[in-house]
């Protein structure tokens, strides 16, 4: 590939930006190699391969009462293109308003970090054919589960290898390599003219940590077959068990309300609740950027700051927000190392690896302990309002009678307020499954409104 190498690209970008009059600057270079393939039935559906680079430049220009800032990005890494972009970035920054809280961090930069197991170099040598073989295995296993699995959206594999380089005029210059791999299967079950689809996915930093492909295919198929014959239930108020895949989605909703940006804007229903009980004592939420092999692990965040382990909610009590430097300054606090950015985006706040600590029961025991209620295995739609906490989303799963899942359910909604739901958690399971950066064990909420027929 032509163009400047990463170390030189970030160095030159900062140098040029400062030369055009910026007070400070940073630059992020990300290089990625990706391959993805899907098998459907016995046929390859697609194979895609790509190598990409991008450079992002941030410039801060001094004003009377603060800094003005701008961000640019490009995939053109020719030296003259980088020079032009640096100049444009400064010009763009001059057009924005002064902001007393804008600027790079001056300290707190990551210096040492443990081996985070973000990559297995051997995985680079895995051929496309071997990857496709994994998808074939998952697909075949899914279709072998039950004669009612006669179709699918396919089984997919993908790997991305990243090289990250970040430097700032405040004195940080660092880089790391990471990879992520996934394998998923999405079978379709059909019976009496009705079809149901479900999927299962495994994702990891190292291919060796992925679940066995056949197991992924089987779990996906079992989930799809289990939904056959789903029907609505009558509108009611009952206990609701969220399985690990949907409890994770609730935690994602909660995370959006803990971002420093939502707090200083007053757009989170939790904005005035720091230090207060916001959930049942069974709920402890941890964010840890150093979890070995974690899909959200990184040695330093998007501003070069140390990442590490923090308890965000401790036995129901809200301990703190997730912050980057800007939102921390707005709140008079210190960054928590949750700055997340790509070359084309300014830092924002995101969890690193965020999870709810496992409890004692198994998911099956949570169900067995529910005389009458709902087990939710799928949530869809965007019915969550972070400003009020109001929650109303489409759902599917199983109706529970006398502690047993008696029939599949769909075309219903579950609704409540996230604050009330967290306070009403009366069961936390012990199994946790990492599909991504956010994970939770199955949870039971004592009472929610189920809307159906």
């Amino acid at each position, binding site marked *: *590939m*032509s163009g400047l190498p990463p170390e030189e690209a970030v160095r030159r970008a900062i140098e040029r930006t400062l030369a055009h009059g910026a007070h400070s600057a940073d630059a992020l270079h990300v290089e990625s190699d990706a391959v993805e393939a899907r098998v459907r039935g016995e*046929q390859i*559906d*697609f*194979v*895609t*391969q*790509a*190598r*990409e680079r991008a450079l992002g430049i941030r410039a801060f220009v001094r004003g009377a009462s603060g800094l003005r800032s*701008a*961000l*640019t*990005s490009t*995939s*053109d890494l020719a030296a003259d293109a980088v020079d032009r972009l640096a100049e444009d970035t400064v010009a*763009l*920054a001059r*057009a*924005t*308003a002064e*902001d007393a809280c804008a600027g790079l961090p001056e300290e707190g930069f990551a210096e040492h970090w443990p081996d985070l197991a973000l990559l297995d170099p051997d995985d680079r040598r895995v051929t496309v054919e071997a990857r496709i073989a994994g998808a074939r295995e998952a697909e075949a296993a899914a279709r072998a589960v039950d004669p009612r699995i006669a*179709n*699918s*959206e396919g089984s997919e594999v993908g790997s991305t290898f990243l090289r990250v380089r970040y430097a700032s005029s405040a004195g940080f210059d660092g880089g790391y390599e990471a990879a992520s791999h996934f394998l998923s299967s999405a079978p379709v079950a059909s019976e009496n003219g009705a*079809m*149901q*689809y479900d999927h299962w996915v495994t994702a990891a930093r190292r291919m060796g940590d992925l679940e066995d492909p056949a197991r992924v295919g089987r779990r996906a198929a079992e989930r799809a077959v289990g*939904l056959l014959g*789903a029907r609505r239930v009558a*509108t*009611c108020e009952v206990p609701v068990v969220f399985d690990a895949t949907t409890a994770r989605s609730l935690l994602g909703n909660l995370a959006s309300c803990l971002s420093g940006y939502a707090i200083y*804007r*007053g*757009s989170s229903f939790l904005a005035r609740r720091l230090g207060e009980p916001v959930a049942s004592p069974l709920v402890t939420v941890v964010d840890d950027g150093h979890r070995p092999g974690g899909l959200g692990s990184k040695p330093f965040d998007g501003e070069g700051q140390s990442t590490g382990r923090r308890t965000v909610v401790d036995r129901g009590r809200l301990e703190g927000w997730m912050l980057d430097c800007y939102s921390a300054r707005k709140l008079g606090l210190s960054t928590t190392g949750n700055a997340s950015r790509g070359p*084309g*985006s*300014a830092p924002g706040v995101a969890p690193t690896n965020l999870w709810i600590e496992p409890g004692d029961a198994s998911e099956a025991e949570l169900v067995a302990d529910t005389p009458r209620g709902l087990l939710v295995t799928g949530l*869809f*739609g*965007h*019915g969550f*309002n972070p*400003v*009020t906490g*109001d*929650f*109303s*989303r*489409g759902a*599917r799963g199983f109706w529970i009678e006398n502690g047993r899942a008696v029939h599949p359910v769909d*075309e219903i*909604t579950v*609704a409540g307020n996230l604050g009330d739901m967290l306070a009403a958690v009366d069961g936390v399971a012990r199994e946790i499954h990492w599909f991504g950066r956010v994970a939770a064990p199955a949870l039971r909420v004592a009472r929610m*409104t*189920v*809307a*159906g*027929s």
Partner: protein
Amino acid sequence: MSDAPLALFRSRFGLDDRQLEAAIGTALEREVDHADLFFELSTSDAVVLEEGIVKSGDRHLGQGVGVRVQSGERQGYAHSDEISLESLTLAASTARAISERPGGARSVAVAGAGAPVRDLYPVATAPTDVPVGEKVALLDAVDRYVRQRDPRIVQVMASLVTQQRHVMIAASDGRLVADVQPLVRINVQVIAEGADGRREVGYQGAGGRFELAELVRPERWQAVADEAVRLALVNLEAGPCPAGTMDVVLGPGWPGILLHEAVGHGLEGDFNRKKTSAFSDRLGQRVAAPGVTVVDDGTLPGRRGSLNVDDEGTPTQRTVLIADGILRGYLQDRLNARLMGMEPTGNGRRESYAHLPMPRMTNTFMLAGQDDPEEIVRSVQRGLYAVTFGGGQVDITSGKFVFSASEAYRIEDGRITAPVKGATLIGNGPEALQRIRGIGHDLALDRGVGTCGKDGQSVPVGVGLPTVRIDGLTVGGTEG
């Protein structure tokens, strides 16, 4: 329209027709059904206002090329952010690996007018060329205007996003076409706080493929700001939403997201070719009430979902999906059209050169009926009147769709009464449209803010709807 778009790629990357032909030729060294090259050069800008000041400006330059090879149902795809003969040849050799069999020697001559036969979105000034100072001034004006509207407004967030996207497609059938696609959008979000400390959000946006000057007109952006304020204030008064099955009246315009979710996705060619859609094998069957006609139309001038040509170079068109309640057509890209023995409909779209095209919607809407909208509301005893929506989602296979109202009211004895919050509607696509009982004469298209996600790819779309009554939808509130 001139051949300026083609000239841009030729001059900027030093690519002539012979080199394009050579790259396609490399792909055709195996036995393949089709091969194409997709070039893209885009600039996008955003300015964002918050807390009374424009805190940041962004500018992103993207460029790249994707080489695709199709053999039967298989697609091989390789893309690179470097546009050069070397990267093209490498990508072509990678993509063709999808086919194991050697092909006969074929030579391709690319030709064609180079430009689409029409231009649905001519602009004199690219929106990304408008000086950033003018964009900042617009957002400052929005902020001042909103804050003096009502003392209960405590936060204003506004953004202005502009894009100029150049694409060029060269294919093994000799097609060579380029297009320039401008896109502008303004968003206004406000938070209102009531006397009791309760906070609610109101959001509105507008945009399309037209001059930025259009949005700078005060009557245009003030209407957007007024609407955001009104929504936040209505929501301050909103009570709990009822739960259960009821008759629902959808207002005109943006509630057309119902069609997008309930039928649009299910009629995309890929799902129907694979028979994983709840609408598979139902052409010619009744899927909606008599009088319901749904079209997808990529040819509306200046609309957000419109395109001169799709991302495979096929001219867009108006496709009738449902005519008088009967399923008549699917949305097709080239691959799925070929495999189903149908014609491409100009719906092969992709987020960028880094993605494979798929069948996607453009502007999807229901044609107007003859009913008086007020009469439709009066016909409902007890139900819900929903006028503004957030997002929606559909499970293509089971046909279940869900979408969330951000402005809704109870209907009691034929009258619109108290506002309710957080109403999520859920239904079954192939059944819900059969329960339509009234179609208003007031078809409206949305304001130009829709973005559709599928398989991780986002593309701009439009929707539209007249006032309609649908019986027996499940409303997901909290009040039993």
